[in-house]
């Protein structure tokens, strides 16, 4: 009875939000309890990939610029954190400074990539960005000679966890019978960052700059005819998207404690792009859904081995082969059934009257 009256008080949407909050809070502990710690880690990575997908969504989904080298910005963020918070140079800068620095640096790299490719679109842009991604990876692989900066293919080890004075997220504590491990802490850190970036993304979508990105995606010439400085607006998209990747990279380095160029291959770029496309380009919720599904699905397919064992008493197909096969198949089927993504943007999702929208009175700033 109390619960029912509470439902009325809170309203339908608020109640749903409350339930979601409780589920999200309990999720790592439940997974730990019933499926094992590996699954908490998988969910951590799913959140990290959500951050990446949200960033790439700005470039690909909003501005329509096909970027196949997006993982390079993830690498920039990761190496920024790795180099400044590890014994590599003996630097142990605080994370609250290094994480934003990584995002900023990645944003700069975004502009570096964007500037020479401004006149390219579609396939041509894809090829150049692909090359850029590879350049970054190969650089990281080879910057150990003559001066050792990145430690080459060995990567950087012993990277500091997120820590503040004596509090470190690398500790395990027991609290009332529940063991709270680093994977749990990072879950909440990543969850917070993903939520925050989700809000930032959807605010951007409804803002003046968001509309400008989408206008360029739709018709660049017509956008220029509306008075959009298409060059600057595209560069903003590159920089903004890249900075999401840079932040994710820093978090990744702190979480793993180890990074090497192997983590930043073309396959990873393609995977993030798949998340965006499959989830629903230009729709933040869809993109996050895509990221979570594509992170979790390959892990679920690992159970194909044990399943064969119980059903057929013999492993007929090696699960590691089957995994990618089924994964590919799932992608094809989903794209056939839902070509616009699993959860595409609705008509009119971004409609806003000027009186009630979020854009700042930017003219003052421009006048100086």
């Amino acid at each position: 009875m109390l619960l029912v009256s509470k439902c009325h008080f809170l309203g339908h949407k608020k109640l749903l939000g409350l339930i979601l909050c409780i589920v999200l809070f309990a999720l790592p502990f439940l997974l730990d309890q019933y499926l094992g710690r590996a699954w908490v880690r998988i969910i951590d990575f799913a959140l990290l990939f959500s951050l990446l997908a949200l960033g790439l969504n700005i470039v690909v989904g909003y501005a329509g610029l096909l970027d196949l080298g997006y993982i390079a910005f993830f690498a920039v963020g990761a190496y920024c954190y790795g180099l400044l918070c590890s014994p590599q140079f003996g630097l142990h800068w605080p994370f609250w400074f290094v994480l934003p620095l990584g995002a900023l640096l990645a944003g700069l790299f975004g502009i570096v990539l964007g500037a020479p490719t401004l006149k390219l679109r579609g396939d041509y842009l894809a090829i150049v960005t692909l090359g850029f991604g590879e350049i970054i990876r190969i650089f990281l692989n080879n910057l150990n000679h003559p001066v050792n900066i990145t430690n080459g293919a060995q990567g950087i080890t012993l990277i500091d966890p997120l820590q503040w004075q004596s509090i470190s997220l690398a500790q395990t504590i027991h609290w009332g019978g529940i063991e709270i491990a680093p994977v749990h802490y990072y879950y909440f850190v990543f969850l917070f960052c993903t939520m925050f970036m989700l809000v930032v993304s959807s605010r951007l979508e409804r803002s003046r700059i968001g509309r400008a990105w989408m206008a360029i995606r739709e018709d660049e010439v017509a956008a220029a005819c509306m008075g959009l400085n298409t060059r600057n607006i595209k560069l903003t998209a590159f920089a903004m998207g890249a900075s999401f990747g840079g932040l994710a990279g820093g978090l990744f380095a702190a979480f793993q404690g180890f990074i090497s160029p192997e983590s930043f291959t073309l396959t990873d770029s393609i995977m993030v792009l798949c998340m965006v496309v499959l989830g629903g380009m230009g729709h933040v919720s869809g993109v996050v859904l895509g990221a979570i599904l594509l992170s979790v699905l390959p892990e679920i397919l690992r159970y194909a081995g044990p399943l064969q064992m119980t059903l057929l008493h013999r492993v007929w197909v090696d699960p590691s082969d089957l995994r990618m096969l089924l994964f590919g198949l799932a992608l094809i089927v989903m794209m056939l059934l839902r070509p616009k993504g699993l959860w595409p943007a609705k008509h009119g999702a971004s409609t806003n009257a000027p009186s009630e929208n979020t854009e700042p009175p930017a003219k003052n700033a421009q006048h100086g």
Partner: protein
Amino acid sequence: MSLLKVEGLQVHYGGIQALKAINFEVKQGERVALIGANGAGKTTTLKAIAGLLKLQQGHIFFNGNAIDNTPAHARVGLGIALVPEGRGVFAHLTVADNLLMGAYLRHDRTNIRSDLERYYALFPRLAQRQKQWAGTLSGGEQQMLAIARALMSRPRLLLLDEPSMGLAPLIVKQIFNTLIEITQEGVTLLLVEQNAKLALQTCERAYVLDEGLVSLSGAANDLLKDPKVIHAYLGA
């Protein structure tokens, strides 16, 4: 003084000379048409004025100032708005967002609001479809949207490229009547139109383009009676 003056305009497309030497002017408040056959250089002229193409030679003066090197987006700020050929509506943005894009350079929210209301009143079909994606509109509605969107920048000079393209005659008539209404409120119009008869009936003056040159010019009424024009463009 003329609002727009084009002097010796030359534009190359790759190796092809699309405009050889175009000269004309448009006075404040006028309705002027550019007519001519396919490939005469009408669209190229409009694009050059909007800043979408680089000039090889010649000058464009707007309100007395040379704007030869002003980039396209800055020309919108000066008061030039182009409705591009094929409309160029943002298909996956709503009608309302399309209109707001037209006001991208403006920051006077209350006036933007009232302009929106004004164009919704002028094109009631757009008001009904505010929240729909522009790509779901019919051709005529898209053309109305493209015109209204250009007007949202409060231009002094409206450049219209082939507004009648692919539309039913009745819709074309509606749109052209609205155009006349708009220009009576002070917007200057430079119209490129394949349908020469319609263009000459709508505008006060016209220039006939032929292979990158102005071959004829004069008052629209005179051109309508000109045997050369009748023979070449009016098909009678």
